[in-house]
C-alpha cells in the first residue's frame, strides 16, 4: 500500500472538481472516485470534503441537485458547471507548471556533479 500523502486545501478543491467532471456524483461518490482514480494512494479526510463541496458550490464551480441514489435513497448530486470546467483547466495548468518548476529545481545537481 502506497504511503498516504498529505493533501493541501487548494488541491482538494481541484481534485473534487476533477472527480465531478467525469460525471455527477454525490459526496460519498466523490470520495470513492478520488480514491479510485488515485489508485488508492489518496484518502481524503472525510471531514474536509463537505465543506469543500459547499465552498465550491458557493463559488459557482459546481451545482447541486437532489436525486435518487443507487439504492433509491435521496442524495444530493453535484455536477461540474461550465465555469467550473474552465476553472479546473486553469488550476490544472497552474499545477503542472508549478510541478515542472519544482521538478526542475530539484533535478539540478550540486555544482560540478
Amino acid at each position, binding site marked *: 500500500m502506497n504511503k498516504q500523502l498529505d493533501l493541501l486545501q487548494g488541491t482538494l478543491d481541484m481534485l473534487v472538481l476533477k472527480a465531478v467532471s467525469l460525471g455527477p456524483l454525490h459526496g460519498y461518490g466523490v470520495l470513492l472516485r478520488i480514491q479510485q482514480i488515485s489508485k488508492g494512494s489518496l484518502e481524503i479526510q*472525510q471531514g474536509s470534503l*463537505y465543506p469543500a463541496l459547499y465552498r465550491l458550490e*458557493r*463559488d459557482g464551480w459546481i451545482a447541486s441537485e437532489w436525486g435518487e441514489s443507487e*439504492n433509491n*435513497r*435521496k442524495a*444530493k448530486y453535484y455536477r461540474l458547471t461550465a465555469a467550473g470546467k474552465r476553472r479546473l483547466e486553469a488550476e490544472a495548468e497552474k499545477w503542472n507548471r508549478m510541478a515542472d518548476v519544482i521538478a526542475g529545481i530539484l533535478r539540478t545537481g550540486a555544482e560540478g556533479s
Partner: protein
Amino acid sequence: MRIWRRLRAGWGAIFGRVRVESELDAELRFHVEAHAEDLMHAGLSREEALREARVKLGGMERTKEECRDALGVSFIESVIQDVRFGLRMLRKNPGFTATAVAIVTMGIGANVAVFSVVNTVILKPLKAPNADRIVQVEPTYQGVPGTGAGLPEFNLWRQQTNIFQDTSAYRLDRMNLIGGSSPELIPVARVTLDFFRLFGAPVLKGRTFTADEDRPHGGNVAVLSYGFWARRFENDSQVLGKAIVLGSESYIVIGILGPNLDTEQFDRIPDVWLPFQIEPNTDDHGSYCYVAARLRTGVTLGKAIAQLQAVVQEYRRRFPAFSSKEGFTVQPLREAMGNNSRRLIMLFVGAVIFVLLIACANVANLLLARGSRRMHEIAIRAAVGAGRGRVVRQLLTESTLLSLVGGTLGLLLGMVGIRALLALYPGNLPLTSPVNPLYIPRIGESGSAVTLDWRILGFAVLASLATAVLFGILPAFQASRADLNLLLKENSASSGFHRPRTRSMLVVSEVALALVMLIASALLIRTYIALRSVNPGFNSHNVLTMQMSLTGTRFEKTSEMEQLVRDGVRRVQALPGVTDVAAACCLPLETVWQLPLIVVGRPLDGPYHRFGGWTFISPDYFDVFNIALTRGRAFTERDDANAQAVVIINEAMAKALWPRSDPLGERLIIGRGMRAEYDKDSARQIVGIVGDVRDTVLDRPPRPAMYVPIAQLPDGINVINLRLLPITWIVRTRVAPYSVSLAIRSSLEQASGGLPASGIRSMDEVESQATARTRFEMLLMTVFGCSALLLAAIGIYGLMEYSVQQRKHEMGIRLALGADSRDVRNMVVFQGMRLTFVGTVLGIGTAFGLTRLIAGFLFGVRAWDPGVFIAAPVLLGAVALLAVWLPARRAATMNPMVALRHE
C-alpha cells in the same frame, strides 16, 4: 459575479434556513449510511459499520458548522445565535445583569441629561437667519464687557455701516396692561425697528415699525407676540387697528408676530413690542439697552473689534467723560448669552465625566468577575469548535446587549433628568424682578426648548456602544487567551485564571475618583453654608415686598410720587400686623443703579471721583430692614423738596472716601455728566452713615452706596426712573408676611387710584433667589458625590465578595486547620481596606490638583481646606469598611466542610 452568488446564497440561506439545515443533515446522514453499507459488505456488523462510518466522517457538528460557514449563512446566523445565547446568560444571572444595567443606565442617563442642557445653552445656535453672524456690541470697563449699553453708544454704533448691519437696541420693561377685569403687569419689549429683521421675526399679520414710528414722538404703535395674541385676544383676526392701553397711554396694534420667534435674549417672553424711539442725538448715558447687530459680509469678529477702536476715539471726542479705561467690544451673541452659565455647565460636565468613569470601572470589574467564573463554559465552547474570535465576539455581544439595554433606559432616565434639572436650574426660577441680577438665560419653559434631537440620540447610542467595547473588551480578550486544557482540568472555582491585579487596580481607581468627587461636593456644601451665613446687613425675616409700575403721566412730578408714597405708607401702616412700611426703587441683593459722584471741595482729576450705588428711599427704609444707623441721622418727613438736599452713605463709602475723617457734613454731587436731568440735582449733604448691605451677590464685599429721599428727587430724574423700573413697596410685619399681603395690596391699590401691586415676594424669598445658583451647584455636586460614593462602594463590595468566593477553598482549609474565624474575617477586611487606602492616597493627591479648578465656585473655604480633606477620606473609609465587612463576615462564618467540598 461570485459575490452576487454568495450574497444570494447567504440571503436565500437565511430565509431557507430550516430547509438548508434539514438538507445538510440529510446529506451527511446519507454519507454515513452509504459508507456503512460498504463497510458491511466488507464484513462488519451494522453497528460496527455505522460507528466506523461516523468516526471517519469526523465531528458532525463541526462539519455542519463549516458547511454553514461556507454557505455564508454564518455571519448573520451566528450573530443571532450570539444574541440569543447572550440574552439567556444574562437572564440566568439576574443579580449581575440588574447591577450592570443599573450602572450603565445611571451613567448614560446623567450624560444625556447634562449634554442636552449643554447643547441647548452653549452649542445650539440662535434660531435666527445667519445666527452665527449676530453679535452683541457692548461697552467695556478695563477690558471687561459690561452689561448693557447707553443710547448715545447705540446711535454711534448704528452709524458704523461698514461693520454692522441691522444694528438694533432692545430692552425689557414691565408695564401695566389696563383693561379687562384687572390691570396686569406684562413684559413689554422696546426694540428699534431693525430688531425684527435682525432676528428674522416672522410676521403673521400686519407689519412691524416704520422708521417714522421709531423716532421720538413717532406715535404709539405696538406689535403683539403670538402667545399674547392667542391668550388675550383669542386669535381675533380683527385685532389690527384696535388699541391697547399700557401704563396710561393707548397704543394701536399694527402687527402680530408668528409663533416661532426665539426670544432668549429676554428674561421673559415679551408680550408686546413697542418702538424704542431713541433720539438720534441724545446724550443720556445711563445703561438702557442691549445692542445686537449682524456683521457685514466679509467682516470677521477680529476686524470688527479692531475697527471699533477708531469708533472709541470718535466717541471720546464727542463725550470727553468717557474715560480711557472704557472701550467697546463685540462678542457673538450666543456666547454673550451663555457666558454666565458656562462655568456652571463646565462643573456639570466635569462631574458627569467622573461619575461615568467610575461607572465604567465598576462594570468592567463586574464583567471581569463574570468572565473568570465562566472560564469553564468558555473552555468547552472552544473545544467544541468555536474559534477564538467567535468567543470574543460572543462575550462582546453580551456586553453590547447590556449596554444597549442600559443605554435605552439611560435615555429615558435622561429625559426625566432634563426636566428635573430645568426645574431646579436657577435661570428658570420665576423671577419677578425686572432686571435679572444673575443674567442666566432661560432654557425653555419647562423643558420645551431642550428637545431630544438627533445629536443627543446619536450621542446616547455612541456612548452605549463605547461603554460596551470599553469594558467588554478586556474580559473578552482575557477569556480568549485562556489555556483550554488547564481550564478543563481544573474545577471552575479555582483561582488559576482570574486576574486579581487588574480588578484591584480598577477598584483603586474607583476609590480615588469617588474621593475626588466627595471632596468637591464637600467644598461646595461648605461654600453654600458660608454664603447662607453671611450677614447680609439687614433683617429679611417677616418682610414682604411688592412692585408697582408707575408708567404714565400721573406720577411724573416728584411731588405726586411723594404723595403716593406717603399715602401708601400711611394706609398700609394702619393695617393690623404691620410694623414698618417703606418704598424704594430697588431691594437689597438686587441690582442697584451706579452713578458717578464728586466730593465737593476735593481736587478732581477726571470727571468724577468714583462710582457708587444709588437708591432712592422713603424715610422708614432703614427701619423696615433693620439696617443699623451708625452715625448721624436717618431721613424724616422734613427732608422734602424745600429743605436742604441730603444723602446718607454706607460704611463702605465712608471708609473708601474718608478713611481718617468724619464724612458727616461733607457734600456730594451725584450723577454729573450722565445726562442733563442729573445735572439739575444739587450738591447733597451727608447727614447719616448706615451699615453695609450686601448687594447683588452675596459673595462680594459690599460696594459703596448712597441713599437719597424720594421727596428730593428732581422731576426729571423721577420721570426717568418711572419709565425704567417699577417702584418697590416694602412692609415689615409682626405676623407671617403673606397673611397680610392681600390687605396690603388693596391698600396700595386704593392709594394709587387703581394701580396693581404685583410680584409679591417675601424678602426671605429674594434672599433665597440670590443664593439660588450656589444652591443648585451644591445640590448637583452632592448628588454626584453620593452617586460616586455609592458606585465605589459597590465596586469594593463586588471585588471583595468575588475574592472571598474564589478563595473559599483556601479559607475553608484555614478554618479547618484551626484558624480563628475572626482572623479570617480580619484578613479579608485588611485586604479590602488596603486597596481603599491606596485609592484614598491617590484620590487626595488628585484632589489637590483638581480642586484648583473649582476655586472659582468657592466662598468661605479654601480649595485645599484641611477639614474637608480629612473628613471626606474618613467618610469614604467608613463606607468602604461597611462594603468589606459583609463579605468578610461571610468568609468568617463559612462552614469549613461546605467550603472544602465546594467545587
